């Protein structure tokens, strides 16, 4: 998984609680991404970062926020979890802009009850 870890790997939480997922990389890649994967939808981009403290929204950013205070860490926060946010969340990194591939972490399975 190219030096990318995600924590926790599994989490069950209740509706309305805040949740933070962590992505940690050891590759010193500039770009970091958060995706969610749901059946029938493939991977959808939530937020991404193009440098420390530089972030932008993706396709499905509502209800999520991110922070990147260090190159190696990218945090995804569900401000008030809802059942529709039950999903598998993947972090990815990318060395540069183009034409580089992305490297994916192992994923976090989140269940909101």
């Amino acid at each position, binding site marked *: 998984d190219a030096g990318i870890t995600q924590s926790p790997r599994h989490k069950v939480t209740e509706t309305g609680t805040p949740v933070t997922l962590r992505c940690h990389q050891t590759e010193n890649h500039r770009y970091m991404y958060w995706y969610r994967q749901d059946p029938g939808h493939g*991977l959808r*981009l939530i937020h991404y970062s193009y440098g420390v403290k530089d972030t932008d929204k993706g396709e499905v950013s509502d209800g999520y926020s991110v922070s990147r205070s260090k190159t190696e860490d990218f945090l995804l926060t569900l401000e008030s979890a809802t059942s529709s946010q039950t999903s598998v969340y993947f972090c990815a990194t990318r060395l540069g802009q*183009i034409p580089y*591939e992305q490297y994916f972490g192992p994923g976090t399975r989140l269940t909101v009850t």
Partner: protein
Amino acid sequence: SQQGEEDPQALSIQEGENATMNCSYKTSINNLQWYRQNSGRGLVHLILIRSNEREKHSGRLRVTLDTSKKSSSLLITASRAADTASYFCATDDGFQKLVFGTGTRLLVSP
């Protein structure tokens, strides 16, 4: 919205057969990439083809790109049971993001 749409959604073949999956996309691209995802794992990059390339090979993988038709195909030759996975295309418009398709589930039976 999804940029790439893979076809077929699912494919079942025997070991030794070839597997072909297709990807169509909507807008101009800088490059197109293919990824594999084994069950319960993260995606793994397979191959990247630039917009000025028409064909690219990597081991048993062959990728073609037709920018006039906005389509790409991934051919896996002499499939093995270990090739069982989901395969995704992703388009790169040259900025900071990839847009992934919904994937093709490949099952290779011994």
